């Protein structure tokens, strides 16, 4: 096959010199800009390989002139962030929580830290504003199961509730129905009585019978008048806000085979300053006690 470069009469361009079955091909080089872009990227790749971790070797890999490592960088970044924050957060950690509350500067930081940590960790159970959800108590109201003082809240958050942590807040309602402590009729009457506490029913002969059963079985945890007992985590029954619903069926279900709320211990995930900030934030949501 002859390879002779000719000039094409029609376009005025050179041919490649190839000829296949009488067909000749024009030599149309790649556009210059494209070629140079290609060469630049190739050169860039070589430079990159020199400065950054790149070529694998027999033992390990070439670490690059800069010695860059993603993991070392993130470790340093996180440490730098912690150091920067520690100026204030260390103070929050070391000062007694009641003192933090009196210091507007510390409080400003605690509030922000608390708000962010709340949105990240607490909102899915307690609601965005701490308004509560079925099964998850409101934190913005002045109705507390375990206590609404700063220290109470801090302790609850740190160790959790029935979380499995040895210092967790712990209490067990008895399984009055399942374990046969009360007969179904008795449970029905006590539910009638609790309904009066909930403000859902007027006192009646049935509820009077229930009151006696309540006095015998329930006051130890729920208080003489159903006002709740914080030492044992018995929630208040008096009033209109309840964890597990306010119908008679809900009460019967609870007394028969109680549900018991679980909250994780946050000391496994959050540092002490963040937990303290959270306690201050929750306390300030509206229900904090002094």
């Amino acid at each position, binding site marked *: 096959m002859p390879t002779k470069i000719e000039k094409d009469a029609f376009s005025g361009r050179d041919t490649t010199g190839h000829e296949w079955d009488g067909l000749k091909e024009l030599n149309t080089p790649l556009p210059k800009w494209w070629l140079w872009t290609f060469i630049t990227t190739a050169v860039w790749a070589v430079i990159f390989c020199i400065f950054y971790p790149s070529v694998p*070797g027999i033992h390990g890999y070439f670490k690059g002139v800069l010695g860059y490592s993603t*993991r070392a960088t*993130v*470790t340093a970044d996180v440490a730098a962030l912690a150091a920067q924050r520690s100026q204030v957060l260390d103070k929050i950690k070391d000062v007694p929580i009641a003192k933090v509350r009196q210091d507007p500067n510390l409080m400003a930081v605690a509030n922000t830290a608390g708000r962010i940590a709340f949105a990240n960790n607490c909102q*899915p159970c307690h609601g965005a504003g701490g308004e509560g959800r079925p099964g998850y108590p409101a934190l913005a109201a002045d109705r507390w199961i375990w206590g609404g003082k700063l220290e109470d809240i801090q302790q609850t958050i740190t160790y959790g509730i029935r979380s499995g942590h040895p210092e967790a807040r712990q209490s067990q309602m008895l399984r009055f129905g399942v374990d046969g402590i009360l007969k179904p009729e008795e449970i029905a009457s006590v539910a009638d009585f609790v309904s009066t506490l909930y403000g859902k029913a007027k006192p009646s002969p049935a509820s009077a019978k229930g009151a006696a059963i309540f006095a015998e079985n329930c006051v130890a945890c729920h208080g003489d008048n159903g006002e709740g007992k914080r030492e044992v985590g018995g929630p208040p029954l008096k009033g209109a806000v309840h964890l597990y619903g306010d119908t008679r069926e809900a009460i019967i279900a609870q007394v028969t085979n109680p549900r018991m709320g679980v909250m*994780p211990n946050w000391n496994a995930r959050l540092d002490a300053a963040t937990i303290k900030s959270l306690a201050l934030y929750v306390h300030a949501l509206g229900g904090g006690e002094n």
Partner: protein
Amino acid sequence: MFIRHETIEKNAILMLVLTLITISIGGIVEIIPNFTIETTIEPVKGVRPYSPLELMGRNIYIREGCYLCHSQQIRALKDEVERYGHYSLAAESQYDHPFQWGSKRIGPDLARVGGKYSNDWHYAHLIHPQALVPESLMPRYAFLAETPLETKILDKHLKANRTVGVPYTDEDIANAKKDLEAQANPEADTDFEATLKRYPKAIQVPGKPGEPTELDALVAYLQVLGTMADFSSVTPEQLNR
């Protein structure tokens, strides 16, 4: 000196051979170093194969396509570590076949969701996410609570994983059914202690006795995510290798 490209272009066999050689150089450079390095996995303690219930839950996670909205990989970036905790290690997905790193985050990363919420929360959330998180885009998976978990070929699931390198022992396989039942039912008279010895940190879920559902399995799986690795067993230097 050089083979003229005309010669190559006109000789299909020669072109094939030269193509093969060129491609193998790339392959060899990438593969050979892996044979000489003892392991590319960090020496972190605690990562174990999934318990039978967790493994079945994982299958449901895959079947339902949870990975289309959730990643399981905390990248080594400051913001991610701040929000989700320690960045993910290769060691943590060493028993995942296939891994669930994912590439899309319509929902949050789940690599360390284990222990973040209670079992109750996961049940309620999977059944009806919007009841707990009103603005949630997550679909409802209530049907999982009514679908009995298929356990007929449980041992085959473990064996299949063993074939691809997960170190399930014969004992693990023999006890698979018992372990599954113990983990799915805290009330029954089962030996969960023995299960815990085989699968430390496994979390019991409140299934109905004798009839675990797909939801039970899924929650058991979610509750173990990211909790296995013991970060005190490994130094930053070892991780930065």
